[in-house]
């Protein structure tokens, strides 16, 4: 299994070098956050050929989803991307809701929007912080992780879990915002802005950092499109594709925000795009707050017991609702037969779910279209001809999340 799978390239005649060297990087390597094995053939420090092996975190996500009810698949979606679990919950629930044809109440939509952006911030902060760490800079990593902690604390207030959120439900969300959440959110955002400013001062124009990131990991736009690359990687190359604008879902068409783009598509542009998206996420969250404050007496869930079981205080006091909850838990909801695809803009790009229902209480097929998978595929082409040291920043900016890539 450890043997290299690379075909050796023929050496040009008259070259002073005698042989290229084959090395294996990973699957567990200190300079990558993501479980991947890279078989490399290097000539000095130049990459001649590489083969990327994924699959080390394959847990049979789709197979598991097919064996439970629709609701039981939601916690599995948490385990796709540990940084932005809420967005995976959301994409899955949106695809099922599309099949059922149910409309989420306004308050639920706005809380979902807020939770999505909180999730996006956690993901981007990890990407940027970990990128610095893997290039040897500990301090900015700590700024990033402190800010992520604030996001995760807020997420914990929303749903009781810092990482595996299990927050979004088919037909709504697990629970409304908890008392004190919005106040804590306001103070945390101020602190996060301060941390981002500090982070920016230490990193963005740091000579060592810029030299490692500039002009590395580039690929022409046509290639990126052909590989199906989406998200910040595509935007850094100058294509302003953002599903929140292209196919507005949730409340994004009522919110004012910008889509940052780069020009060259190198790692430095990807870094800057993510940095700006953090600022835009804060801007979006601040626009969600007044609506959530205004709609305090509205429900976040659909009032249809066939989709979303009733609120607990009613279940414990009334016969009809008790039966509905019982049936909802034991039999699961019945999703009409058919197929649907819904996608959200995740921090890595288009995260979509293609679901097929046969009309029973169990999913027939749950396909996750993982952005990490399509973003890692072109890594070989991005790096051949580059230096060994380019792998780390490129892999950082691809932000491959093993759980999502390998499912």
């Amino acid at each position, binding site marked *: 299994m450890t043997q290299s799978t690379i075909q050796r390239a023929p050496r040009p005649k008259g070259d002073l070098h005698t042989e290229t060297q084959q090395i294996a990087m990973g699957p567990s390597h200190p300079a990558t956050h993501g479980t991947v094995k890279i078989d490399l053939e290097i000539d000095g420090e130049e990459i001649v050929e590489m083969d990327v092996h994924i699959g080390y975190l394959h847990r049979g996500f789709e197979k598991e989803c097919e064996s439970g009810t629709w609701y039981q698949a939601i916690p599995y979606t948490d385990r796709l991307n540990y940084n932005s679990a809420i967005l995976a919950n959301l994409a899955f629930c949106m695809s099922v809701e599309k099949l059922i044809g149910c409309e989420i109440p306004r308050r639920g939509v706005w809380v979902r929007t807020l939770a999505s952006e909180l999730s996006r911030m956690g993901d981007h902060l990890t990407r940027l912080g970990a990128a610095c760490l893997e290039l040897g800079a500990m301090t900015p990593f700590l700024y990033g992780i402190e800010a992520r902690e604030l996001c995760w604390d807020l997420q914990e207030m929303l749903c009781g879990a810092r990482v595996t959120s299990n927050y979004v439900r088919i037909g709504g969300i697990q629970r409304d915002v908890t008392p004190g959440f919005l106040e804590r959110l306001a103070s945390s955002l101020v602190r996060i802005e301060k941390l981002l400013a500090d982070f920016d001062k230490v990193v963005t124009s740091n000579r060592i950092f810029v030299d490692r990131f500039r002009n590395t990991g580039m690929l022409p736009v046509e290639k990126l*499109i052909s590989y199906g690359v989406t998200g910040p990687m595509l935007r850094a190359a100058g294509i*302003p594709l953002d599903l929140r*604008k*292209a196919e507005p879902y949730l409340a994004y068409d009522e919110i004012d925000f910008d889509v940052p783009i780069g020009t060259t598509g190198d790692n430095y542009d990807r870094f800057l795009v993510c940095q700006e998206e953090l600022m835009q996420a804060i801007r979006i969250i601040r626009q969600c707050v007044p609506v959530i404050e205004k709609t305090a007496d509205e429900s976040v869930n659909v009032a249809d017991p066939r989709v979303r079981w009733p609120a607990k205080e009613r279940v414990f006091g009334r016969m009809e609702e008790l039966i509905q909850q019982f049936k909802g838990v034991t039999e699961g909801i019945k999703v009409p037969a058919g197929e649907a*695809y819904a996608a959200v803009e995740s921090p890595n790009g288009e995260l979509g779910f*293609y679901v*097929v229902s046969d009309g029973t209480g169990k999913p027939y097929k749950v396909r996750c279209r993982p952005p990490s998978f399509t973003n890692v595929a072109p890594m070989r082409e991005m790096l051949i001809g580059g230096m060994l040291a380019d792998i780390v920043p490129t892999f950082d900016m691809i932000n491959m999340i093993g759980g999502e890539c390998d499912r």
Partner: protein
Amino acid sequence: MSAAGDLVAQVKSLLGGDVLDSHTHVGDATVLVAVARARETLKRLRDDPSLSFNVLVDLTAVDYLGREPRFEIVYHLASLELAPPAGEPCRIRRRLRVKIQVPESPAEADSVCALWDAANWFEREVWDLYGITFRGHPDLRRILLYDAFKGHPLRKDYPKERRQPLVGPRN
């Protein structure tokens, strides 16, 4: 007619008899095309200037065990606007789901790697998990599982509880 209905009508007029079936369930335009003409059909969908499906968003398979033909391969295509007006975000002009039906034996289809680079890994995944081979694929190896793995786990007749050497004992 809905946007999805218009799109299906447009695709049908382009492809004619290659479209075997179509529907617009929950607003998703879907066409079923002949398996033998799949590569040619997808190429026309990509290259036709009024459709220009330049992105292969997703490629997967579904196992309808007990039905003949047994497998469906599902392509999700998108037409992405590459040069939006200055300062405007890109639009996704249209999305289309293209399906082909593949029998259990031979479980084979044509590779579309030459049309979209994204197909390379997607097709490796379908081979790995469903055991469908793709003719003309440059490098059809397992991708998520390991070489010594036996069987294709997303087939409906692969038992979820089956253990294999590197999968480990039941806990």
